[in-house]
């Protein structure tokens, strides 16, 4: 590094300057003053230059659209003529409250969110615990667990549509082997929501397991040793040492999974085969994300889509507040 720097660096000491002939010292003095001014300017402004790209892009493609969505939600806007905006006040929102499909989508989002998030995190916790043992081939198991994460929503959903097929799907075939009737996964309310949740669980369990595993490896071994001395079995150690130590991580995955579940879109869109954004013939697995898409890009009402977006945001804020309160209570009781 030092060899790259110019020879007369500002590190030159006071004595060095004093030993020079006077006329050269004046020249050096000016040069040094100029350089130190440039140095001060550089130190002062370069941090802003380094963070500027992020904030410029964020303003253009993050903050501005966010606020403009609020503005658009107060208007009647059609996809065919997005610049013709007609002020309608809160009508988009009041219509939403009377809209049975909105409430249906909200309810589906909640139930699919629950039946995908809860088993997913529980299985992830168990798998992480097993991965934390000394194992032969542990890296293979970790990479394999993460592979579904590399699969896109579209590819995963298309495979599961086949696996969940009513007449020739492998899952119904396997169920038939143990004496069950064929299940119409796509058309039942509960069965279709279960199938959609399966896709979510499949894609994200391994990812969450690795996050838990990372947190488990940070737990000091002393805790386990003293628990073992107190006569705790492995299962008791898991319950009384591992799980409490993971509490912040568990909260983190709950928040992230909840945000993900609120936005569920690709799975219900493609699970419907060729039938579009309705989320099944009876809207039985239409989520809020899918309903937003249907209103905006199938029915061409961008204003209403904006209102749904803001409603989703408010719901997320409520969920965030509930999570925060729960976390506070949990840490108090600990």
């Amino acid at each position, binding site marked *: *590094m*030092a060899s*790259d*720097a110019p020879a007369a660096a*500002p590190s030159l000491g006071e004595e060095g300057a004093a030993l020079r002939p006077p006329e050269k010292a004046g020249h050096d003095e000016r040069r040094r003053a100029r350089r130190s001014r440039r140095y001060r300017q550089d130190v002062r402004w*370069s*941090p802003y230059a*380094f*963070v500027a*790209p*992020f904030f410029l892009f964020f303003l253009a*493609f993050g903050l501005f*659209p*966010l606020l*403009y*969505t609020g503005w658009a939600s107060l208007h009647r806007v059609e996809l065919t003529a997005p*610049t013709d905006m007609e002020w309608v006040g809160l009508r988009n929102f009041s219509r939403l409250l009377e809209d049975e499909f909105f409430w249906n989508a909200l309810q589906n989002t909640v139930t699919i969110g629950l039946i995908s998030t809860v088993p997913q995190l529980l299985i992830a916790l168990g798998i992480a*615990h097993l*991965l*934390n043992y*000394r194992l032969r081939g542990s890296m293979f*198991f970790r*990479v394999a*667990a*993460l*592979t*579904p994460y*590399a*699969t*896109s*929503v*579209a*590819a995963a*959903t*298309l*495979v599961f*549509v086949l*696996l969940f097929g009513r007449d*020739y*799907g492998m899952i119904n*075939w396997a169920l038939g082997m143990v004496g069950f009737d064929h299940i119409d996964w796509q058309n039942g309310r509960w069965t279709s929501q279960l199938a959609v949740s399966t896709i979510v669980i499949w894609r994200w369990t391994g*990812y969450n397991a690795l*996050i838990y595993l*990372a947190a*488990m490896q940070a737990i000091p*071994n002393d805790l*386990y040793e003293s628990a073992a001395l107190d006569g705790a079995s492995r299962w008791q150690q898991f319950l009384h*040492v*591992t799980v409490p130590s993971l509490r912040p991580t568990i909260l983190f995955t709950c928040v992230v999974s909840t*945000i993900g579940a609120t*936005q569920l*879109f*690709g799975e219900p*869109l493609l699970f419907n085969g060729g039938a579009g954004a309705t989320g099944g013939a009876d809207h039985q697995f239409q989520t809020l*994300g899918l309903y937003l898409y249907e209103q905006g890009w199938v029915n061409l009402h*961008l204003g209403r*889509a*904006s209102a749904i977006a803001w409603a*989703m*945001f408010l719901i997320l804020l409520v969920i965030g507040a509930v999570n925060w309160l729960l976390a506070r209570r949990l840490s108090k009781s600990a």
Partner: protein
Amino acid sequence: MTNPLSAKRAGRQFHGGRITHAVLILFTIGSLFPLVWTAVAASRNNSRLAQTPPPFWFGGNLFKNLEIAWTDANMGAALLNTTIVAGSIAAGTVLFSTLAGFAFAKLRFRFKNLLLLLVIGTMMVPPQLSVVPLYMLIAELSWTDQLQSVILPTLVSAFGVFFMRQYLVGALPTELIEAARVDGANSWRVVWHIVFPAARPAMAVLGMLTFVMAWNDFFWPIIALTQNGSPTVQVALTGLGRGYIPDQSVIMAGALLGTLPLLIAFVVFGKHIVGGIMQGAVKG
């Protein structure tokens, strides 16, 4: 991952027994089976897929189906588009995140904490909240069906900034920066000669994670790009799923084509991607 304490880490005092292995093998089968079966189904034909029991082993139609998917669903162009999109997003995210992460980790400036809080806050905002104006914007600019409409809005990432900050706080010695400054190096030289070399491992991990995310992104591309214009793989797969090509084995061939590049990357870089996710998790 090379922590000297690793031998003493939690749970490590026990060797995994047979049951541990058995459960993990079952889990692995569950994780890999849908992918393997995608290839099995892609190697059959439609009428074989409409029979019970379903096929469990490969048939002879794989290359024929891949060819149909390649030409009819334009998967070749879609793969190229997705590579451009994911590559640009990964490169931009890594570059801008490293610069901003360095500033937040090591430099002093006014409003630093406020700005960092803003970065973290933006991670909470769902993408749905901005799609309507973004769509209006790209319609206004006549960018629909053009790749920059997908690249530009995702070119920076709050997660990336935060990730690089957390890494550089520990990995970049402040004395090294000061020494370079004393030697007369300006900020850009410091970035080029000190920050980038120190950040390289984290840049590689962030690049891979961003590439995977951008490759699989679905919601915004399906709005901004149509199947007939210049779609990404995910948008092209949507077209397959909607039955423009009704043959299930061809749909599976398309899904296989769209997944294969990332699967190969996972076989090659799997260890590093796993390490990156675990690292991000502990620090996040």
